């Protein structure tokens, strides 16, 4: 009989161990689906990364996303409630600013039991004013994570 009790206790212990993970409590894979934009310059077919010393970005009528940061790429948080988002981009406090308009389709996506739902985007067009920006290229239309580069902005060469 002692053997039986040992087996029962061992069984209960293992049940306890097996039941330790509640997937709805832990959000371990947050969805970051921001549009990743890189800066480029093109001189007679020769393309290179362009780093600016004081980049500021913000959505129109919203808080700043980035303020006077030296960088060669930025992330834009797209609006999950509308099919377009407009952002201001200034690469230097001494020069003018440009406006970028992203137009896209939105798709809700189940991330995980702990994180719930998020939104992924499919870029249609990206329109930019031409103060300092020469051209825009969409390199990746599907915005499902921020690891890829989605848009390249080409600036005028000085």
């Amino acid at each position, binding site marked *: 009989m002692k053997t*039986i009790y040992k087996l029962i206790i061992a069984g209960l212990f293992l*049940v306890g161990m097996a*039941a330790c993970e509640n*997937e709805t409590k832990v959000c371990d894979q947050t969805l970051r689906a921001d549009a990743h934009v890189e800066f480029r310059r093109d001189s007679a077919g020769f393309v290179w990364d362009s780093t600016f010393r004081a980049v500021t970005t913000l*959505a129109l009528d919203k808080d700043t996303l980035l303020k006077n940061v030296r960088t060669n790429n930025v992330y834009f948080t797209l*609006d*999950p409630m509308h099919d377009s988002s407009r952002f201001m981009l200034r690469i230097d406090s001494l020069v003018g600013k440009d406006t970028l308009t992203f137009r896209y389709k939105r798709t809700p996506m*189940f991330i995980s*039991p702990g994180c719930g*739902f998020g939104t992924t985007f499919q870029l249609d067009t990206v329109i930019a004013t031409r103060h300092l920006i020469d051209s825009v290229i969409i390199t990746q239309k599907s915005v499902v994570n921020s690891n890829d580069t989605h848009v390249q902005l080409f600036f005028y060469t000085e």
Partner: protein
Amino acid sequence: MIRTFNFSFILSSCLYCGTLFAQNKPVAPAAKPAKDTTRQSAVKKITVAPPKDSSWLIPGGLRLGVDLGRIVNNIYYPYRQEYTIVADARINARTYAAVEVGYTNTPHSDTNYTYKGNGMFATLGVDYNFLKRQYVNEKNMFYGGIRYGISHFNYEVPTYTIHSPYWGGQLSGSYPKTNVTAHWAELVLGLKTEVLKNFFLGWNVRTRILMNSVEKDGFKPLTIPGFGSGSKRTVFDMQYTVSYVLPFYKVRERYVPPKVKKEVSTR
């Protein structure tokens, strides 16, 4: 364990004694002795008479039980309300046909979404008892088994909310009711012990391998009834069962003569 130890001890003792006897070489007689009619030959040919009735009846029956492990599970996973009935029936001395049926309800609600799901499941397979019986009527089991599992269920998200801290708003939506069928294979290893007459306690560990995809429109269910997590292809689980045997039939077991090892002749 104690029984296994005893068995191992006895077996090893026999082997040891056998080895000792094998090493004692017979001494050659100095001269041919005269025929002694008063003594009988020391080596007598032993013959085992086959039993007259070469088969007998052992207890069979239908064992019905419930999985109490689901109650523990429900404490840790409030969104998994699962009820499982287990049953097995003896086919022969060592093999049992095993069936499990159950129902799962999956209610969940938090600030991000509400989820509803429910469905039935069933598994069908066989168990093989590895335990050597100590007496004819022994019903304790240490067994391994294999199962095929099927589950038909539905799930939906009546409301979800996507929060956007930067844009200062939230988006609401819903995901329609979807019907899915899942198939899986299952390996089981466990124990069943007769604690009272025909009343058993047991537990087992099992691994399940999902054989088809249950994802619809990029949305996996929270749980698959009978299987477990909807986001995993392989899961481990445990059962803790109480069961009762309805002994309404018996199984005939036939006598199998023990295999005699051939003696190796040495010169």
